[in-house]
């Protein structure tokens, strides 16, 4: 029986699917989201307290404001790094999938896995942000009293909220628009760090790559004290929709998306090219 002629796109997608199946059975897949959920639960308990005390229900928009807290943004994005740090994912099963896919499709499949991973991780954060509001949640496309009060009064200080609910988001976006914009930013940032991790794994080794990527992520807690130009080097800061909308980052949403897109294309191109020309799994 001769094998079927390979279709590059189809085979790459199947390699990605195989990688997803491997990831599904990995302990990290339960452990990392579990730990992040517990961490988030504690971090957003003031929001839940406020919702409970107000007697109102909130639109499911917590995700939009999570990244305004720099001490929260770092750990949330670091979670993505824990999944991407093994890129290009030389598992012990690489031989079997590689043989069937061929070099081109195998590398392309691993590359496709990074944005898929980023999408799934961002979706998890969105879902976590939604679940954490239960039972005080109302699926509506209006900001409602909860978010409006948090934006326009000092209730956030009274309840000890560390996330900032800002009027510039409420006035410039509907809840659905804000969620979509925040999702896009976080997805692009996660994808960028995935490919950056891959590229640095190949060039400087996994240990150094992890240090550099992690440092770039967690420096978001301090970047606002540094000169303005340094914020261009810290994509983790671009997940804060409020900072983008207010102009603090000197770029709008489209500008941030373009820069991230360019960064993704560059790091992905280098990663793919170097991997394609390398010994697989050495």
């Amino acid at each position: 029986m001769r094998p079927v002629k390979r279709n590059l796109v189809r085979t790459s997608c199947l390699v990605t699917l195989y990688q997803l199946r491997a990831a599904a059975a990995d302990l990290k897949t339960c452990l990392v989201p579990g730990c992040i959920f517990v961490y988030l639960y504690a971090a957003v308990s003031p929001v839940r307290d406020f919702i409970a005390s107000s007697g109102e229900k909130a639109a499911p928009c917590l995700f939009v404001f999570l990244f305004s807290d720099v001490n929260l943004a770092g750990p949330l994005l670091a979670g993505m790094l824990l999944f991407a740090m093994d890129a290009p994912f030389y598992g012990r099963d690489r031989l079997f999938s590689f043989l069937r896919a061929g070099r081109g499709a195998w590398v392309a499949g691993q590359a496709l896995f990074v944005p898929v991973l980023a999408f799934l991780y961002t979706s998890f954060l969105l879902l976590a942000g939604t679940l954490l509001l239960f039972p005080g949640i109302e699926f509506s496309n209006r900001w409602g009293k909860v978010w409006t009060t948090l934006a326009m009064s000092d209730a956030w200080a009274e309840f000890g909220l560390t996330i900032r609910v800002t009027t510039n988001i409420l006035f410039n976006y509907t809840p659905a628009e804000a969620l979509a914009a925040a999702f896009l930013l976080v997805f692009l940032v996660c994808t960028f760090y995935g490919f950056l991790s891959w590229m640095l794994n190949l060039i400087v080794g996994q240990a150094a790559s992890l240090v550099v990527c992690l440092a770039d992520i967690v420096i978001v807690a301090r970047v606002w004290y540094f000169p303005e130009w340094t914020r261009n080097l810290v994509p983790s800061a671009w997940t804060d929709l409020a900072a983008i909308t207010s102009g603090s980052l000197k770029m709008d949403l489209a500008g941030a998306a373009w820069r991230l897109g360019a960064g993704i294309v560059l790091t992905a191109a280098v990663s793919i090219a170097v991997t394609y020309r390398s010994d697989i799994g050495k």
Partner: protein
Amino acid sequence: MERKETVSAEGLVKYFGSEPVLRNVSFSVEAGTICGIIGRNGSGKSVLFKCLTGLYIPDSGKVRIDRDSLGALIEEPGFLLHYPGLRNLVYLMEIGGKVRRDAAEEAIRLVGLEPGDRRPVRKYSMGMRQRLGIAQAIMEDPDILILDEPMNGLDNEGVRDMRELFISLKNKGKTLLIASHSREDIEILCDRVYEMDKGRIALVR
């Protein structure tokens, strides 16, 4: 009767850093035969096989092999440990382009395992994983098989079964290239034997 060469390497050179691991390796395997490569650990057999399968890129030299009809088992078999054996093989077949569940089941039976075994691979013994690795190499009916230490972890009965299997595959016209440190396996199975030592290869018979 002169047979066509289905696998050949010419002047293969491979370095790891500045250290040569393959030194001008040239050999060929005729269609429908079993060729053995014998050598100690570290002699370069696995590196050679990785160059043949495309995992490694040689620094110079040529490899001629039809990778579209190739089955291989190199190093320890690596499967998705939380899934049963049959499911692992089906997932791999998907990547290859055509899923024939009956072929995967037949391959599992041929290596002495049970297709209906629902245990995850992480519960398999080393010998069972090795058998499953051989099953994944043969399930798509490739014309060429590259097997690196296929008898690893097998008991005497398993070794006998695999010898019979390899001979039956040869009789069907398949080409097998087997690496082993066991001279007995090589003597019993192989029509042609090469020996590798420190990255060099020499024809023995």
